[in-house]
């Protein structure tokens, strides 16, 4: 029972970071209908922004967190403007968007490897606020790491703000309308270019937050961008393009992963993640909450 609770807590904390990643990815998918495979690189850059502003600039942690989110948002918007916008203007086929995203991801990851180097960097604990110093909290037999609590709380606040923004503000409604039908939304006076920039900025900001949290729990390294694979799986699991689906999918995926690594073996954790993906595609390709995606044509 103790081990069960322990795995549950671990799963929830890592799941909340997956959710931060998957939501940004899903938002972009819902508007543009393509997988932004460069999302992982934005997460990785966010982690580096946070790390370097903390260690090199010596700013307080709260500012470093803000820099990570803002920097990642800027990168995401730049990516949209420089790489995807010309394709949209030309009404390029869907294939070109994926290839461009792949190119961007290779470019960003390897630029970091070539300049900063592939060695992982650990957040120096003496630069983190007092809350992160000291032993993990203990509740009976249950130990909860301080970073885990921060991950869960920060992710919950960010996601709550996002849900509020999407559901209760005019801009959020505009995003929903654009996701539903981009042409009709444009005819109603919503500027699709502005909405797309906004969506990339939100997705990038959440990616930066996810990056710095993930970097604190583990380390910061260029191959970090590969963990977005998990957020893709989570998004498919929950239903591509659906925000609540991305949330639910992330939490479930993380829980399944931690239980597998807790009870079976860490080696098979990733295999199960892919197994879930395949199983989901067989049983219900639209995911838990997704729209029907069978090609009607």
């Amino acid at each position, binding site marked *: 029972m103790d081990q069960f609770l322990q795995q549950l807590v671990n799963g929830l904390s890592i799941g909340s970071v997956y959710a931060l990643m998957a939501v940004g990815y899903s938002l972009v998918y819902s508007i543009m209908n393509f997988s932004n495979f460069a999302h992982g690189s934005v997460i990785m850059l966010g982690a580096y922004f946070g790390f370097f502003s903390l260690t090199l600039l010596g700013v307080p942690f709260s500012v470093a967190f803000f820099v990570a989110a803002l920097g990642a948002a800027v990168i995401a918007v730049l990516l949209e403007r420089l*790489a995807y916008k010309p394709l949209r203007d030309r009404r390029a086929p869907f*294939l070109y968007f994926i290839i461009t995203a792949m190119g961007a*991801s290779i*470019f960003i990851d390897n630029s970091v490897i070539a300049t900063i180097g592939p060695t992982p960097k650990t957040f120096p604990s003496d630069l983190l606020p007092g809350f992160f110093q000291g032993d993990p909290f203990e509740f009976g037999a249950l130990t909860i790491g301080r970073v885990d609590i921060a991950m869960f709380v920060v992710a919950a606040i960010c996601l709550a703000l996002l849900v509020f923004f999407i559901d209760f503000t005019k801009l959020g409604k505009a995003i929903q309308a654009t996701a539903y039908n981009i042409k009709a939304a444009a005819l109603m006076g919503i500027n699709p270019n502005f909405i797309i920039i906004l969506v990339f900025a939100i997705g990038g900001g959440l990616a930066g937050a996810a990056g710095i949290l993930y970097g604190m729990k583990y380390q910061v390294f260029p191959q970090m961008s590969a963990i977005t694979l998990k957020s893709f799986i989570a998004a498919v699991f929950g239903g591509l393009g659906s925000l609540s689906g991305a949330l639910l999918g992330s939490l479930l995926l993380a829980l399944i992963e931690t239980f597998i690594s807790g009870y079976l073996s860490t080696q098979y954790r990733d295999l199960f993640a892919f197994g879930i993906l395949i199983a989901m595609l067989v049983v219900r390709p639209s995911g838990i909450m997704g729209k029907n*995606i069978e090609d009607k044509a």
Partner: protein
Amino acid sequence: MEYIQGIAILIGINLIAVLGLCILTGFTGLFSFGHGGFMAIGAYISAIMTARLNLPFSVAILAGGLSAGLISVFIGQLTLKLKGDYFCIATMGFGEAVRVILNNVEYCGGARGWADLPKLTSWWVVLLLDIVCLVLTWNLINSRQGRNLIAVREEELAAQMAGVNVFRFKMIALIVSAVLAGVSGALMANYLQFLRPTMFNMAKSTDLTIMVIFGGLGSISGTVLGTILLVSLPEVFRNFAQWRLVIYGLAVIVIMVGRPKGIMGGMELTPAGIRKVLAARRAKAKLEAEVKAAEQGDAA
């Protein structure tokens, strides 16, 4: 001389896999992140057959290709009917899953790798298979089936309306590309004499696709050119190894934004293809001259 021959063999081995992707991505418009996985299957099956079972190399190559093809049928059944990115994400998951499984198979060396495989791949085997594969893809693309593939790429809905079974042709493209990737993997295993699961990671899959994009989507001669360039360039510029992928990534974006057809893009380097391009140029020049003449006439 041996060094150059070594590079030539590597080009030839990669070319087989890249030709498969040329059909899948260049002509059918499907994007895969997982062909490293198919290559790995071909490589490991062939290695088991030659190193453990002492079967002839020809059987091993055949088995490597066919087993990759069989698995592609399964992946295709699951994802090719779905719209959007499911195929991409599933191939990505597939490629990684193959790698994770191989990491845990101690029979094949596990994550540490598998050394001392018999060296059976010689330059003439590679050359022979390259020619066979080139002729096959060329004939496929220029056949009725090939035109259907292009129709699927250009406009799925219209192709379906015109009676093309879109699912079936996507499946054909996927199977052909997987078989070729498997064959290429089999040759690779018995040339390098060493296998490790990380050799077939996602970077390998994207490397193969980048060769297709460089050469030009929808051009077989472009694909050959792209493969020759991208396999031999890193050998020439050894010192820039760490910047290689930075440049590749940037080049992919620039190509997609600026010249999405790559070096060759839709053109073929054959007498007929060159004549076609020249004829188009002449027609354009003639049209421009006529327009100019008409304008002068107006002015007068």
